[in-house]
């Protein structure tokens, strides 16, 4: 089993490397050029040329990729083209903000999604199950920016309980941060909970129809014991994968939500950089998102291996 886990971890690193290459290639084939974007329409070809040389844009792509990768591995994401600031210094506090928002949403969504999913599976076919099925389907189908605006209309305008702008700044207290970030967190919770609920429900249901669950009932065990002792331990693997996927989505999916609520996170930073064609910043944000995504999924894979009795207790 340690070998399996090591393989998974190594695969995660490899995936991340591949992603870094893809990000780099994608930003290269994007139309537009930083130099002309920064200097504007009136720039002379000569000044453009000088500026490009200054930025190192005249070197071949693979050399630029490796020097970029080398820097990233040493914690250096380079300098933002537009304001000449060190990217890592700009990115880090924003990343913490994003993590704060994602954790806020996760703390609400994971127990809610998994708990309601199990409950829904237990009450399969009953009214509450069907009701939650329809509601979650709607929540998944509607884009999150729309959910965000609806929440603003309801809870910031009609009932002005929460602010519509989630502005946080350094030195703000945790309580106040939580209050301000409530609406964006709720938006994320709605979307993610729905997904988690549905996936948890279906994985518990598939376990509930196995012969060993029937056997447990025929042994005269109570329903709660059958579910707690027999069904859930075997449903853990699939549930872990779903939770990890949704946690990753929470971090990555905030891009849109942060913009709706003007929340100073990585997503907003990235969208801003894209509109200004600030390629190094876009690359850095993309890589951070990819790292979170790959990291969480690798952890989920490893956890699934650990909870699998066949792998934990080999013959």
């Amino acid at each position: 089993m340690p070998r399996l886990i090591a393989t998974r971890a190594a695969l995660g690193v490899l995936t991340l490397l591949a992603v870094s290459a893809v990000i780099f290639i994608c930003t290269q084939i994007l139309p537009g050029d930083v130099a002309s974007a920064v200097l504007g329409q009136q720039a002379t070809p000569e000044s453009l040329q000088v500026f490009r040389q200054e930025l190192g844009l005249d070197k071949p792509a693979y050399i630029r990729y490796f020097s970029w990768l080398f820097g990233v591995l040493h914690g250096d994401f380079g300098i933002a083209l537009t304001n000449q600031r060190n990217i890592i210094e700009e990115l880090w506090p924003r990343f913490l903000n994003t993590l704060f928002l994602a954790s806020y949403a996760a703390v609400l969504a994971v127990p809610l999604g998994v708990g309601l999913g199990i409950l829904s599976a237990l009450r399969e076919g009953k009214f509450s199950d069907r009701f939650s099925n329809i509601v979650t389907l709607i929540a998944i189908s509607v884009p999150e920016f729309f959910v965000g605006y609806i929440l603003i209309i309801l809870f910031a305008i009609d009932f002005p309980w929460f602010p519509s702008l989630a502005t946080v700044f350094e030195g703000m207290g945790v309580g106040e941060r939580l209050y301000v970030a409530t609406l964006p967190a709720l938006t994320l919770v709605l979307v993610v909970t729905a997904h988690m609920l549905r996936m948890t429900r279906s994985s518990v249901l598939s376990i509930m129809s196995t012969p060993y669950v029937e056997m447990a009932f025929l042994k005269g065990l109570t329903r709660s014991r059958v579910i707690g002792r027999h069904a859930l331990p075997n449903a853990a693997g699939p549930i872990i994968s779903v939770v990890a996927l949704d946690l990753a989505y929470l971090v990555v999916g905030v891009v849109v939500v942060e913009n709706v609520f003007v929340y100073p996170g990585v997503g907003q930073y990235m969208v801003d950089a894209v509109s200004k064609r600030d390629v190094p910043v876009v690359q850095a944000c993309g890589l951070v998102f990819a790292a979170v995504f790959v990291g969480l999924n690798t952890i989920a894979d490893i956890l699934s291996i650990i909870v699998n009795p066949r792998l934990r207790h080999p013959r």
Partner: protein
Amino acid sequence: MSDDLVLHLEQLKVETIKGAVLVDNVDVTLRRGEILGLIGESGAGKSTIGLASMAYARAGCRITGGNIIINGTELRASTAAQRRNFRGKSIAYIAQSAAASFNPAMTLMEQVCEAPVTHGVMPRAEAQAYAVRLFRTLQLPNPETFGDRYPHQVSGGQLQRAMAAMAMSCRPDVIVLDEPTTALDVTTQIEVLALLRDLIREFGTAGLYITHDLAVVAQIAHRIMVLRHGKMVEVGAAKQVLEEPATPYATALVNERRESEHIALPEPPKNVHPVLVIKDVDAGYGDVPVVKGINLSIARGETFAIVGESGSGKSSMARVVVGLLPRWTGDVRLDGESLSPALPQRPRDRLRRVQMVHQMPDVALNPRQTLAEIIGRPVGFYFNRPRSAIKQRVVELLQLVGLPPDFVSRRPGQLSGGQKQRVCIARALAAEPDLIICDEPTSALDPLVAEEVLKILRRLQDELGVAYMFITHDLGTVRRIAHRTAVMLKGEIIAQGPTADIFSPPFHPYTERLIASVPEMDTQWLDGVLERRTLQ
């Protein structure tokens, strides 16, 4: 009603939610220490009765009428908590597939002790000691530590015995045995059967023994009830039902079994031109060999049987021939031409000439396609015929396997198991093959239906001259269909020759053991086998 009546089902009726009747007015009485055999084809309602005697119905079914009385308590009128208190404690269940019926995430000991501890029959320590005693009675290896293992760490036969221990863990009055030996190999089957019988005798438990195999039930049951379409056909003492069945249906069942015991072997074909030659073939998965040094040849129009227990490499042989499992060494020749080891390298015409019929017709057919599509696909794929000609050919093929032409628009879900297997045969024939590999084609079917399918296979061979490589673990089937037979053990062929020679002395010791393990309908058979074994 006498005191020793432990289970009494009165006028039991079970229906699906949609109203189809599964069990219709069945009465069952079971006295202390008595074993009643429930016999019938699949769909006869045997398992449904077994579960209903625990007042349990599977999803989509309901117990709609009658009384279920255990030790004088009527369960249908009881509360759910009362019913739960009977399950596992007074009446326990042994399922067909032990591998599926054990929770993979719990040790065997935890699962065996679960019922006695939660029902408060005995404290944990006592339950464990009792479980070890049961393990020892059931001759499980290292009974002291056997329970520490997980289900995937023990063999199928051991797991089946562990399930018997789990069922006996509360010292129940009644035990429901739902085909407990069907999933096992013949040689393992008699061991488990003898142990189950001794266990039930030793503890004075009453048993409801569900099976489709008359010979198995003959060894263990005092009385036999024959069921068909959810209705009771006949009930009586075991000897009487087996020797002088009163109803036509029971007579047909018994005769089918007798025929397989005394059958004239088919003559080998005179034409000895080989269609398939396998020479010195080794193959395996990863670096683990599963078939070793295989040599055999199959003549045109011949049926060549490969018999052996599960895990002996029979199905791997089939996979080597069709190219799904590329051979490591040796040669496979079809009509004198060497076949590439792997399937993708074989030209279409070679693929056409070797076809397969699988064990499970249910999963071998695409449930969303009509028979016209299923059978028409190989016709179009191999022969490139126009649409109208394909249609014509599908109708011909359906008639060839004895199905009406209007079945073309049906889907597999609308067919019975035997009909599905005929469709699989028709699909194989659509390619006009020289050789059909039949991998246990009848073992998922009921005996009377299996008999029909075997007859069709024999008739098709007479009409079309196709050769069969017939893989099975059922020696009765081999005797009925095979011209020549090879016996496989641990990936090697240990004996091969004309079927008559294989099944008459002098035997290879393993062949003798296989033959001796096939249950016969004689009620004294099991005692005889066990006696001979102890003498040796």
